């Protein structure tokens, strides 16, 4: 029989439905794989008792033929999602003992549909980072290594634990959040599939807020089909989030395998950045060839304001973060460091509770919003954002169905390689993904191949607002051509 942790989510679903396997067996296999992979540091909290109880309940439902769409399937949850009665920290010291009394809407949808929770997954502190090295629980080690080399690599970030766990077979799928690339960049680094849906598709209620106009939840999985199955469960209108849209959620799985013949795919010339490696360039070209072979038409498009997306992001995101993170004051929840008056208590609490990257971003955000600087920075950045969105709208109005780009400017790098110097060097990781958040569009990262050192590289497809279906169809076309990639299990 196949090793249960090597199954895709769709395969496991079908085995459970036909009663060829129980949720208990499937869940136990994942719990042992997690125990053997603690060196990767993907989970910051394992919830085996809860997992087994949920699996037992699922097996009863499956026996009666009453299972939901995800009945009995074990998943991991990024530690940015509030889980009722289960410690939720955003991987920050300031929330180290926070136990929510409510459940995030997205995770509640997964449990509604029968999924089993294995535990909480590591991420960069408050999702601020591109390597999972800012977590207060320490870095996640990628299950991928360079050929003939044992150096530890990052899985990307901020959803590094989710990406690593999915790639290493420590869950069938996982939730992530994406503010500037935090789903797509780690998916690309680990050979997994990650989709950031259109802003408003998933409710943000119960997700620890980073930058509210950019944050979106989305799934990680090992195949495009699996990610489509998960997004259907996660998405949906929520009256508790005023930015959640009241639109029906399509059957995304039905879009997997649909023909892409006749679709017009845009290749934006501005993404050909200086210093892009030949391998990334070749992969991008290959991706276009695969889509062309499937009947799509490839056209060059122009997104002239692309180069301004990252600098505008580093004004908008810290500004919103400085406002959102004002709530961590040592009064209502989280840790408190005493002071002789209330101001000193706030200042000491926040200095001790936030890590360096978070403090830095709060300070940048505070500065750009401060009196006299608002127009020069924040207002201008939001104007540039309008221009970025118009660039995309012009492409879509010209009949382009989706835009194809590389997901990242390079393959994964080593742990500790980019933490010392200039913070901007780390920020450049998100150069291809951040435009998509600025415009609120859906974007999917799918594995395209391995580089010369044997590390995964990803391609990104960007779609029209609320047209995630096209991305699943195109993503699967690339998956069929590129194949799937799994790391060797050196850690177990």
């Amino acid at each position: 029989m196949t090793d249960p942790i090597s199954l895709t989510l769709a395969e496991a679903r079908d085995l459970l439905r036909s009663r060829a396997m129980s949720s208990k067996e499937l869940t136990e296999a994942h719990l042992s794989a997690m125990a053997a992979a603690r060196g990767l540091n993907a989970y910051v909290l394992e919830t085996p008792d809860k997992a087994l109880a949920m699996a037992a309940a699922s097996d009863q439902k499956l026996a009666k033929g009453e299972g939901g769409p995800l009945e009995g399937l074990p998943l991991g949850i990024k530690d940015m999602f509030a889980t009722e009665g289960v410690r939720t920290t955003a991987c920050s010291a300031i929330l180290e003992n926070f136990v929510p009394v409510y459940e995030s809407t997205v995770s509640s949808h997964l449990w509604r549909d029968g999924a089993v929770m294995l535990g909480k997954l590591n991420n960069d502190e408050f999702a601020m980072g591109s390597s999972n090295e800012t977590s207060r629980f320490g870095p996640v080690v990628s299950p991928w290594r360079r050929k003939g080399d044992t150096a530890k690599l990052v899985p990307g970030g901020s959803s590094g634990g989710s990406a690593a766990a999915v790639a290493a077979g420590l869950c069938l799928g996982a939730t992530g959040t994406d503010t500037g690339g935090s789903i797509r960049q780690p998916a690309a680094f680990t050979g997994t599939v990650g989709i950031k849906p259109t802003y408003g598709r998933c409710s943000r209620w119960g997700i620890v807020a980073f930058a509210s106009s950019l944050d979106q939840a989305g799934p990680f999985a090992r195949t495009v089909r699996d990610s489509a199955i998960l997004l259907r469960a996660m998405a949906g209108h929520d009256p508790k989030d005023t930015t959640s849209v009241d639109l029906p959620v399509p059957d995304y799985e039905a879009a997997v395998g649909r023909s892409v013949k006749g679709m017009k795919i845009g290749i934006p010339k501005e993404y050909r950045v200086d210093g892009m490696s030949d391998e990334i360039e070749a992969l991008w070209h290959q991706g276009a060839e695969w889509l062309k072979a499937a009947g799509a038409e490839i056209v060059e498009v122009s997104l002239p304001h692309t180069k301004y997306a990252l600098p505008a992001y580093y004004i908008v995101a810290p500004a919103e973060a400085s406002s959102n993170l004002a709530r961590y004051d040592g009064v209502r929840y989280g840790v408190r460091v005493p002071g002789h008056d209330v101001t000193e208590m706030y200042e000491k609490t926040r200095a001790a509770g936030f890590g360096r990257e978070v403090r830095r971003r709060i300070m940048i955000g505070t500065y750009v919003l401060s009196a006299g600087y608002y127009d020069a920075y924040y207002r201008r950045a939001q104007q540039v954002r309008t221009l970025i969105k118009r660039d995309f709208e012009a492409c879509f109005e010209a009949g382009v169905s989706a835009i194809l780009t590389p997901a990242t400017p390079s393959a994964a790098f080593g742990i500790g390689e980019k933490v010392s110097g200039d913070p901007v060097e780390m920020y450049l990781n998100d150069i291809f993904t951040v435009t998509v958040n600025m415009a609120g569009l859906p974007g999917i990262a799918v594995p395209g191949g391995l580089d010369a050192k044997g590390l995964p590289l990803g391609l990104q497809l960007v779609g029209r607002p609320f047209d995630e279906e096209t991305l699943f169809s195109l993503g699967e076309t690339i998956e069929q051509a590129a194949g799937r990639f799994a790391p060797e299990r050196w850690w177990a």
Partner: protein
Amino acid sequence: MSVDAATVRRIARLARIAVEDDEVEHLQGELNAILAFVEQLSEVDVTGVEPMTSVTPMVMKKREDVVTDGEIAELVVKNAPATEDNFFLVPKVVE
């Protein structure tokens, strides 16, 4: 634009984050690196461009002004570091 040491201290004060004297110089360097990076936005012509307020055009959702939640004071204060009779406790703020 770049920030000096006094500005770093002022921002830290506004952000309610205590900063030690020996951290100021390092922070100043990091903040200036980021500010130098975002400086390129000044070359964009934004004349007459509306600042974005919402990525998807949507009408603000409204609901009836009625009580939909409440009577859960114990849950509200459950994660607080210091409470008494379902009130949050803070250091004395009024002399």
